């Protein structure tokens, strides 16, 4: 615990506009601004937190923001760190972190497909499992799945009834 509190002091001293909290034992949450993200991740990697576990995205629709959560961990310490960044919901863009963690390419591809966030610098942002998609990205909170099903799937006619008509 002493090691973690020292880490918190160092981060807050170096980077402005950053808050560090410990919501539970062995969990650390760092809330920061978009321009501080890459330096913080490089600093954490040099401290020994070399594994990027996941990148998640949360849709805060009333506050009109997306929140990206970068989860890093280390094989030598039980601490699990989440770095949270808020970006605007209209025309959401973000810098890629592939230079620091190479496996971020697939996570960013998934978030682009499901939420619509563009990542500058990512070489391949093509969809993973949606075919011929022509609506808004499906994981946003203003996407209505029942309307979509009525529009696309229920409008395709049965084959036998067409045959009886013609």
């Amino acid at each position, binding site marked *: 615990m002493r090691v973690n509190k020292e880490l918190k002091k160092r981060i807050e001293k170096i980077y402005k506009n950053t808050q560090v909290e410990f919501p539970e034992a062995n969990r650390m949450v760092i809330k920061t601004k978009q321009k501080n993200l890459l330096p913080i991740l490089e600093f954490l990697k040099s401290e020994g937190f070399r594994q990027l576990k996941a990148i998640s995205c949360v849709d805060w629709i009333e506050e009109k923001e997306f929140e990206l959560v970068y989860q890093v961990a280390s094989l030598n310490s039980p601490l699990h760190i989440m770095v949270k960044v808020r970006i605007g919901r209209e025309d959401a863009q973000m810098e890629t972190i592939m230079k620091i963690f190479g496996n971020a390419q697939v996570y960013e591809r998934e978030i682009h497909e499901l939420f619509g966030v563009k990542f500058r610098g990512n070489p391949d942002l093509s969809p993973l*499992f949606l*075919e011929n998609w022509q609506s808004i990205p*499906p994981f946003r909170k203003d996407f209505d799945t029942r309307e979509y099903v009525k529009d696309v799937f229920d409008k*395709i*006619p*049965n*084959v*036998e009834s067409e045959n009886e008509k013609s």
Partner: protein
Amino acid sequence: MDRKSVIKWIKEPGKMGHKYSLWAVYFCTGCGIIEIPPVITSRWDAERFGVIPVATPRQANLFMITGYVSLKTLKAIIRTYEQMPEPKYTVAFGSCPINGGMYWDSYNTIKHIDKYIPIDGWIAGCMPRPEAIFIAVTKLWMMIDKGAATGYIRYRKNYKFYRRNQEKLFGELAWPPLYPIDEKEDESE
């Protein structure tokens, strides 16, 4: 079960052969694939009905759609189904191919598989037990006897409508039409 009646074998060998040696393509869709290994191994033995799994669609007779079908899987199912030699039979397991099942309001699964591939028989359940699968095989035999298992004939006759439904879902399809559209039947593959 009239597998032993020699007279029927001499009079109609084709129909009896299609009944008592159904070879199933080992295609794994959705959740139902967990029900297929118990059916083909020792406890509920499917080989005594003549049903064995084969590795490629070119050698197969029977296509089992076991569970929900997403859009990417539907592309693979259509290509596999068109490679099988005629006559071929399809059976759909579970409630997801019938009307969407548990995923009735999902944006990425197919609700009625009958609009894209012709189906001969449906088995209800989520998932059906192996005994239900055997009852379906015996009902399929009775349908073949009466000449009512005509999925492949319907596919050939109404190919224009099936292909139009597939194109509504996927846009431009990467493979050419199996039968020439708006002409007399003439296999082009």
